[in-house]
Every structure is written in C-alpha cells, then in structure tokens.
C-alpha cells in the first residue's frame, strides 16, 4: 500500500498550484516565494558587500562580477520581490490584526466571504503594481542612468 496515497495529503503540490482558488491564494504563494528569494539574496548581499573590508581591489572585483547584465536582471527581480513582499506583508499585518476584513454577520446567498472583500483583493493588485513600477524604475536606474 502506498503511504502517500493512503494519507492523501496534497503535500507541497498543494502549495505549487496557486491558480485554483483566486487571487488570495496566489498572493500566499508569491509571499512565500519572495520571502525565500529575499532570504537567499540577503545572505548573498551581506557576503558580497563584506568585500569592502578587503580593500579597493577586492571591492572592484566584486563590482565587476555583480555589475553585469545578468547581475542587473537579478537585482531587478529582487527589487520586485522586495516591494511585493513588503506591500503584501502590510496587507497581511492589517488583516491578521482584524482590520480590513469586515465583521461577522448574517451572510446571505451567494455567500461572498467578507474576508476576501474588494479592499483585500485591491491591496493584492496594488502590491503587484507597486512591484512592477519599482522594477521598471530599477531597470531605468541600472540600465539607462550614467554608468
């Protein structure tokens, strides 16, 4: 007997398909992904910038490795991740403190859940839009400003 089948848990596959349940599930998935990505970037960033203590040569060598097209693209993705994670994080902070999710009451058919109201959905879209704007601005600074 296959233990996985007997337990019938979705497992990590349940995390990987965010398209089934609407935008709130998508925001959960993206918040996890960006969180892990940002942690990885944070460790890499501390490591690369610590080259400052080894003098100008070491610092310039680090810059020559990171100030490349690929480096810029990675940084633009990091900017997007950072802005989305922060903005969505503020939405989650508010919701988890009971703000912006409505009140309990007497739901009527078709039972639109108040916790998934227009404010919550709009906040998710705003987080995505802010991330895109930040990425575009980052791309402008990195690729189009004076090198």
């Amino acid at each position, binding site marked *: 007997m296959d233990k996985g089948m007997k337990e019938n848990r979705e497992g990590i596959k349940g995390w990987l398909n965010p398209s089934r349940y609407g935008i709130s599930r998508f925001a959960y998935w993206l918040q996890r992904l960006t969180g892990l990505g940002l942690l990885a970037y944070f460790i890499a960033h501390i490591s690369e910038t610590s080259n400052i203590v080894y003098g100008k040569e070491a*610092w310039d060598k680090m810059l020559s490795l990171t100030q490349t097209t690929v480096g810029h693209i990675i940084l633009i993705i990091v900017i997007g991740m950072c802005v989305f994670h922060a903005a969505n994080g503020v939405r989650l902070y508010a919701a988890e403190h009971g703000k912006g999710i409505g009140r309990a009451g007497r739901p009527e058919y078709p039972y639109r859940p108040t916790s998934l109201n227009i404010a919550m959905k709009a906040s998710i879209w705003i987080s995505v839009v802010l991330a895109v704007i930040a990425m575009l601005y980052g791309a402008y600074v990195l690729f189009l400003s004076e090198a």
Partner: protein
Amino acid sequence: MVRESSIMKVHYYTGLAAIVLVAIHVMFRLTAPGGYYASLEYENVIANYSNVSYVVVLELILVTVAIHGFNGLRVILIELKQGEAWERAVKWLCIAGAIAVMVYGTRTIILASMML
C-alpha cells in the same frame, strides 16, 4: 518556553521595521551625489561609514531582516515536516543562521568603520 504568539509579534514588528530601514538604505544609493553608480565606488562606500546614523541603520537592517527571514524559514520548514527532532533541529539551525549572519555583517560594519 517562548510562546508562539511572542515569536510572531517579533516577526510582525521586525517586518514593519525592515520596510522603513531598507527604504532608507535604498534611498541612500539613489540620492547619493553623482548618481547610483558613483555611490557604489569604493571611496564613497567607505565614506558612508563615517555617518553614525547610517551605520546604525545598517546594523538594524541586519538584525531585523535576519530575525524576520530566518523565522520565516523556520515556519516554512516546520510546516513541511513535523516531529520533535526535526522541529528542534530547524529551530536551532535558524537561530544559528540568524546569529551567524548578524555576526558576520556586524564584523563588516566594524572593520569598515575602522578603515576611515
């Protein structure tokens, strides 16, 4: 025994603090005289360390982001697998990881400040 609600309160506050602190850090690069690329030159980066407030901001970023990030990692890992041994290992590894990053970053800040 630390309650989970206390850990999560710390997670909330470090997250909010990190938004402000990282925004200051990024603004320093974007508003530096000479532009973004000039601000990355060795001399200009070292000169930043003469500004005590900025050094404090960098140290606070280290602390808040390390705690927030590694606690987030701990939460993801204990949701993926349960069991006393695994959860204890995850707890201590995340604490060790956060301390290691904080110590290494603080070393950089101290050494860089001494290079002025």
